[in-house]
């Protein structure tokens, strides 16, 4: 049985794969996932998940502002800009933004 659909997952992750690579990855992923499935031997129903190796909470910052970075510096690595002010990207459908 196919556990993973590499084509679908690659699209989610925005990775272009040629068909040869996709086929190979499909096989590799199945081997890896079979190995990972060894975890199912364990009954973890009563175990709390661990997300962090440190046990601290409420590590917060005071609301004090700092001087932002100069724009030239922050846009210096941009592949394309609009007049050195905005980062240029291929057309995006207006209104599609979300939050």
């Amino acid at each position: 049985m196919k556990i993973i659909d590499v084509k679908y997952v690659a699209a989610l992750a925005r990775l272009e794969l040629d068909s040869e690579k996709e086929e190979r990855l499909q096989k590799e992923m199945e081997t890896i996932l079979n190995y990972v499935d060894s975890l199912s031997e364990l009954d973890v129903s009563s175990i709390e998940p661990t997300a962090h190796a440190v046990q601290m909470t409420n590590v917060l910052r005071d609301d004090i502002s700092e001087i932002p970075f100069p724009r030239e510096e922050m846009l210096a690595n941009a592949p394309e800009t609009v007049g050195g002010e905005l980062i240029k990207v291929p057309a995006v459908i207006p209104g599609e933004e979300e939050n």
Partner: protein
Amino acid sequence: MAKYDVIIGLEVHVQVRTNTKMFCSCPNKFGQEPNSMVCPVCMGFPGVMPYPNREAIRRTVMAGLMCSCEIAKFSKFDRKSYFYPDMPKNYQISQYDLPLCGKGKVHVCGKGFSGQEISDKLIGITRIHLEEDVGKLNHFAGYSGIDFNRAGVPLMEIVSEPEMNTADEAYAYLTALKQIMQYADISDCDMEKGQMRCDVNISLKLAGVKEFGTKVEIKNLNSFRSAHRSIEHEIVRQAEVLDNGGKIFQETRGWTDERGETYILRSKESAHDYRYFPEPDLLPMTFTDADIAAIKKELPELPEQKRERFVATLGLTPYDAQVLTLDKTLSDYFDEGAKQAKSPKILANWIITELLRELNDRHIPFEKNPIPVSHLVELVELVSGGTITGKSAKEVFSEMFAGGKAPKQIVTEKGLVQISDDSEIEKFVVMAIEQNPLQVKQYKEGKTTVLQFFVGQVMKLSKGKANPQIVNRLLKEKLDKI
């Protein structure tokens, strides 16, 4: 009875007003040069890490308390993944299963957008969570450009229960939310600046039927008016589809103000798989009862409580109170004036009938109101103390509005002090009688209503300064003697 029941839920995003962004120390400032309020953190440069802003969290908890929400004892941030160029990391730090604020409610009442009165209602809040805002896309012919100044601004997402049934209720709910945020100083909720944005979930079902219909989402509504209009439009659209035996699809739609229509943005098939998981760069937040009690202590008066106080202790009508609490700045203005004024009710009348009308006519937002409340109180006192006539007061008011001068100064400059001296007014009375023999004749023939004509003449002759009561008395005396 209507054929369909309409079910509406709202997701409202509100920017939290803070000095700095949510996860970096860049200023949280609107209207600056594009990409000038940015740093490696809020632009998602390689190697950076987020660091949460305590104040944004505190204000979100405060918002929750204002909406009677349960505050989480344990809360955390999660990553929400999707690719979009306005989002620097291609994941948004948000909250998934453990939001800061849980179930709550908001009281709505007053007038809807259509002007109709809404019966009082409690709208449930599902949750309020805190996340980071995204950058702003500018659209050009053939390409887009991104400004990341907004990226990382603290953003609350307030999700309501699907408990509204009309566009007016949705409008009133938005108004109530805005009031609450302004009252607690959590956000200015200026929609033009994108500080408040709204998504609508709407479904129709046959009246009386239990199961909900298919839900359609309308995204990115940037005014209360377009929220109202889009709901009205969507109700008609969905009803038409259903009437014609069609099916409503679960989809996301956009709204164009110009055409007054919703349009499809994406269907369910292209729905996102957000892959939420706990943000490994950030540790959880915990709140004790004492923490929550401390924030509770700082809560300001709710609009609702304010309205009750205005009626009970300041002698306002419920209508006056409703109008004066619509806007936080306005209610603060009145509250301040009420402390100085002998009659808060008369001050309220001046604010509602003169000041608000004037601002409205000129499309000036209340924050830009040119008259300090102490001046308005002074004007009210000048009238009630008999220094100027009501007629002069209107003239003084116009002058105050135009030039920002104190009323006493205007009265002095224009010589508007009311004439209450009998002998001086008598001169005008005599003059008026002499100039209008025809009307004198009518009066003598028993047509007493002509007295008002003479009052008008005297006022004109005195340039509006004569005390109307004395004018009345003297006119009667003179005419009756003829």
